[in-house]
């Protein structure tokens, strides 16, 4: 089947999509957008988190056909058009929140959504919002630091 949807603001078409393919597979293998990661493909780890019409979802659990005509934002869509990192991306780099980095794209998408919804989150808010994203390297401390840093920088910028 053919699936047509918007990815990171650009209209995309995928042909010959097998009906069992996930949105994650289509993004990674058909559209050349491997930023969303394939860590568990069971909806447990959050590494493949994208925003579907603004809502964070595990793209491994979304059938490709479900996104027909809808809008998807992946980690590749967070940076500015000129390649400038978004506040939350820069904060992850600066705070040391990236180690192996496999969980990072999913965490960034989830954190981006959190900060949009709740610009000054408490630690409990951050933990709750990111509880669907597993990280095996960092112990999460630096991830908390990164989200706090992004929130502080956003507040300063306003």
């Amino acid at each position, binding site marked *: 089947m053919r699936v047509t949807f918007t990815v990171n603001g650009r209209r995309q078409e995928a042909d010959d999509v*097998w009906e*069992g*393919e996930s949105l994650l597979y289509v993004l*990674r*293998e058909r559209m*050349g*957008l*491997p*930023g*969303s*990661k*394939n*860590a*568990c*493909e*069971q909806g*447990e*780890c959050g*590494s493949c988190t994208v925003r579907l019409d603004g809502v964070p979802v595990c793209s491994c659990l979304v059938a490709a056909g479900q996104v027909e005509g809808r809008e998807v934002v*992946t*980690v*590749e869509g*967070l*940076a500015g058009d000129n390649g400038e*990192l978004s506040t939350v*991306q*820069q904060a*992850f*780099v*600066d705070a*040391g929140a*990236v*180690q*192996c*980095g*496999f*969980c*990072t*794209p999913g965490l*960034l998408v989830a954190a981006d959504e959190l900060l949009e919804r709740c610009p000054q989150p408490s630690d*409990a808010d*951050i*933990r*709750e919002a*990111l*509880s*669907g*994203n*597993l*990280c*095996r*390297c*960092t*112990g*999460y*401390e*630096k*991830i*908390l630091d990164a989200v706090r840093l992004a929130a502080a920088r956003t507040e300063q910028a306003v």
Partner: protein
Amino acid sequence: MAGTRITRTPTSLTQGSGGATRGGVGESTPRPDGVLKVTGEFAYSSDLWHEDMLWGYTLRSTVAHARIRSIDTSQALATSGVHAVLTYDDLPTEVTHYGLEIRDTPVLAHGKVRHHGEPVALVAADHPETARRAAAKIVVDYEELPVITDEASATAPGAPLVHEDRDDHHSGHVPHPNIVHRQPIVRGDAAAAAARADVVVRGSYVFGMQDQAFLGPESGLAVPAEDGGVDLYVATQWLHSDLRQIAPVLGLPESKVRMTLSGVGGAFGGREDLSMQIHGCLLALRTGKPVKIVYNRFESFFGHVHRHPAKLWYEHGATRDGRLTHVRCRIVLDGGAYASSSPAVVGNAASLSVGPYAVDDVDIEALALYTNNPPCGAMRGFGAVQACFAYEAQMDKVAAELGMDPVEFRRLNAMEQGTVMPTGQVVDSPAPVAELLRRVKAMPMPPERQWETTEGADVRALPGGLSNTTHGEGVVRGVGYAVGIKNVGFSEGFDDYSTARVRLEVVGGEPVATVHTAMAEVGQGGVTVHAQIVRSELGVTQVTIQPADTQVGSAGSTSASRQTYMTGGAVKNTCEAVREKVLEIGRRRFGAYHPAWATAELLLEDGKVVTDGGEALAGIAEVLGDEAVDLELEFRHRPTQAFDLRTGQGNGHVQYSFAAHRAVVEVDTELGLVKVVELACAQDVGKALNPLSVAGQIQGGTTQGLGVAVMEEIVVDPVTAKVRNPSFTDYLIPTILDTPTIPVDVLELADANAPYGLRGVGEAPTLSSTPAVLAAIRAATGLELNRTPVRPEHLTGTD
């Protein structure tokens, strides 16, 4: 293949520091791969892509132990889109087995399967789902055999042998062929010392099977080459070790198997053994097309070895005034069906079994079994973790028996520089065990009843969290301490070396350094540290880290906390040689113009040659001109010795590292739910080359120890030896809600033998975090708790 192109492969990492004085050793400089990783552009091994690639898939055994009567691949082969189906009979040469230390692992099952999930057949197809469906059509006729699952069934009279025809270098000294390796350590006279003890405390402990659970699945891309060889892009911990195992099985010389490291999504020991490497190459060579294999999470649980589960028996004695008299212990590790690194794990468990304490009289035995359970091998902490869990529980028990404060009792017996290990090795660098305990105890405590708010309880901070299982009633708090010792680097006489190539040249008028090593960057930050070392040693801002591959000499494994020490050491040494060369060129070209070229101590700083008095003699770019300095050197740590097979004596280890933890937990005693409130750590790192990365390693290692304390375990059915929970639904790793604040106090006592005085960081924090959490739960509940992980039924008495 000629004419085709790989569109997604690893790239070089170039990073300028924005000024020569920044980004050197000792600074928290950011990762050179950080921007690629936050934008999604970093090419992990599962992201590789080739325009006409096929997908490989592995059919795995559904039973743990069986004779294979037949394998029928005809239906799979007839499936549209399938390009190849391979079994043992299709292997190209007579070398059909591989292994890290003992070549006992078949590439594909031969005649028998020895564990649940063992690879039986391979399929290559044009879509991953086609490959999976075709594999499901392969008919394997198994004749099931009785399973060996523990020491009793492995060593019972007449027990079947897991490997019938063992002929490895350990088979001559083990007491039973189902024992991979056994290491006793006898020092002093434990029996006589026991007679002097005022108190003797015994305990038995069980350590569950932990999984590395790295997030990036086993994956890679094998591309057949025109010369009959193969190019393999893969996530691994040690390219050259893989190569040594892969090439013979393919029937190729090592020069025809070219390996390049692809982005690695974590490792923790789980990528020391081969997974898809040989399988991908076999399919690529058979089909003549590039083949990509990516394990799903279910397969990943079968595709790598796990941490050895262990049973441990300990006896500690002490005098009334709190001095340890002796330690006796027996550690039985379950190595599963294949040896992997079990022999080395045994050596570690034995030699570190007493912990960071000074005890003269010991009687120790550690061994690893062959069973039909999943194969076990390397995981962060490597044999020291299991022992630490047990000896730290014992230390608390002895202290309680003596009526002493458990931290004070530990400090009384803490080893220090000059202490003799059970192996007879003298600890000849700082061993600040008492100081680490003092520091971790001195850290401010988290406030009591943090979950209380003016509106009531914030259930998110309570055991059970948003499940609303409690609002604070029945919640009790406990505090526990633990400390551990881990060896750094490969031990027991292993020729452990690293190679680095450094090139310095002028590009666009600026001196630019390029570093080429085969070091696996698995997330630990080695690439960051290499760039820092180059900046410090060569005084340049621009450093490019080339992709790691087998075109340069071995860097050894990214494990045993050794890479900053070893490959970092190699980069440092090579830089020093490059610097000498630069100065030589400078003397040749400019020596006549300034006497300091001949008389002063010269350094490279800020892109210039400067005297130790700070006078600039020339720019590096001027000195080099069109000339490039390009050197490749090896680095070795001081030699070690094998442990004596009877007494365990020998200078087996290179360096030791130490960490201490304090855990604060709250337990809902009604439902048996645990909330770890805080897990503080104090660690000596010798010298923090990158403080931010050091903290990240300590916090990450601490969290893996927390996981095994309260949730992580691969559950193997004791009757069938089948894995019950191979998924992230059922194998639980800590989420951000399960993980507390982890304050870190870093101590830097230089080791005079190590580059920059550094001490390997990665593993030590994984040791003591588990027993600290257990101690805290015991303190909260008063329960004995002698196994990991602690489950609700253990806390509520419903086990």
